[in-house]
């Protein structure tokens, strides 16, 4: 039975099954959009936490670090409450749309990107601070230097965020509703097809998801080895 499921899964992938690729495309769209928003939010938050001095800085860092481990279903529930008809953002009618899924994933991965950025930038700031003072480097040039010199570590952080987004199921299931041709993504489809006993479709999606995860990890390894060459690891 397992062999049959595997061969059917490969047939679906190789025949470029329309339903399967629709799900795959939506998954990538949602996760990449969430990733882009999280980069825009997470990099400045992490950098500011690392190099700025302000009251409550340590509390903010603790909160961001804690949010890294936030359970996806809790995020899903909070976004559901916020976007439901009676919630504060209910008027926008976003519940059970891809936008709601993007919002949930942004809330999940922004703390990851911000916290990892903060750690990387903090190390670099401690190393470069005196030099930049000595060379009278203005703040904007210093921040640009931090971002550039930490680029490999930051790419790793971003890829970690993408990995989390693409493989997440709890939050997108709650806020997206797993609606066919609208909000069905790989993880929610795998959960559904498995419960239905449609193992071939679930396996096909699982293989694609695994391939994506492996590609991301391969990219992380390549980035790390490149970073080691430049002494950035």
């Amino acid at each position, binding site marked *: 039975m397992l062999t049959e499921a595997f061969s059917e899964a490969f047939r679906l992938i190789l025949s470029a099954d329309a339903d399967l690729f629709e799900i795959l495309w939506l998954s990538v769209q949602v996760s990449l959009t969430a990733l882009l928003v999280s980069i825009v939010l997470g990099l400045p938050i992490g950098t500011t936490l690392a190099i700025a001095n302000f009251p409550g800085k340590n509390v903010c860092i603790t909160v961001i670090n804690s949010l890294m481990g936030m359970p996806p279903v809790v995020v899903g529930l909070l976004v559901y409450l916020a976007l439901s008809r009676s919630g504060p953002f209910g008027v926008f009618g976003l519940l059970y749309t891809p936008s709601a899924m993007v919002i949930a994933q942004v809330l999940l991965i922004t703390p990851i990107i911000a916290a990892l950025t903060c750690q990387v930038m903090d190390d670099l700031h401690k190393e470069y601070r005196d030099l930049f003072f*000595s060379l009278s*480097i203005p703040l904007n040039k210093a921040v640009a230097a931090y971002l550039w010199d930490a680029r490999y570590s930051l790419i790793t952080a971003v890829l970690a965020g993408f990995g989390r987004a693409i493989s997440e199921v709890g939050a997108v299931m709650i806020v997206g509703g797993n609606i066919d041709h609208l909000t069905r993504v790989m993880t929610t489809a795998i959960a559904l097809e498995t419960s239905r006993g449609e193992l071939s479709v679930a396996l096909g999606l699982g293989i694609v998801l695994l391939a994506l995860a492996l590609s991301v990890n391969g990219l992380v390894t390549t980035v790390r080895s490149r970073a080691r060459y430049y002494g950035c690891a």
Partner: protein
Amino acid sequence: MRETRDSGKPNLQISVNNLCLDMLGSRVLDQIDLTIDQPGVTMILGPNGAGKSLLLKCIHGLLSPTQGSIGFNGLNGNPKQAMVFQKPVLLRRSVMDNMRFADQDRQTQSELEQALDSVQLLEKREHPATQLSGGEQQRLALARALLTKPDLLLLDEPTASLDPASVLIIEKLIQQATRQHIKSIFISHDIGQARRLSADVIFLNRGLVIEYSDAAPFFFAPHSNEAKAFLSGEIVL
């Protein structure tokens, strides 16, 4: 105010007035009063923990003194300073990019290459800076500091643990900087190096200035017992 013989340019005068520095509840620099107006290299000598690096950091502005002040005279406005640290801090990019980063006067490629050539690093201009040897890293740090054309160059044990060839290159560059009227304050544990380079010497022990005099009298007839012991190679606590 003393003047250099050939340029007529007034010397940079550094006044350290009643400077005290407390760290972690203890006084690490105590009532330092100095007027450094000698051109060339002022050497700071003293045993470990004497407060040499802390004094240098206070002069550079990296540390704020608990009490007292530091003033600069002899130039219009504050002097342009550059510091070379004991452990060289290099950006995680190529040798040439490290030079470009410090270059605020937008010097030409050939000027940057000339600066690298002066520290014998031209051939390694595209190498990752952090992959250089310790001596090469320190030479790059010095070339980068000199690129900023400072009036005051602060050097915190730049030749510690370096091979003789790198020490020679660094000493030559500092002597060349002196000829270009750059004032240097240099920390070293190498008495031979101090004799070779210094115009005047500050001897510190336990956060106090024990002696401050021109180099010749300090090395040939030190006044304090601590300085005598230090110069004779005894362990000074």
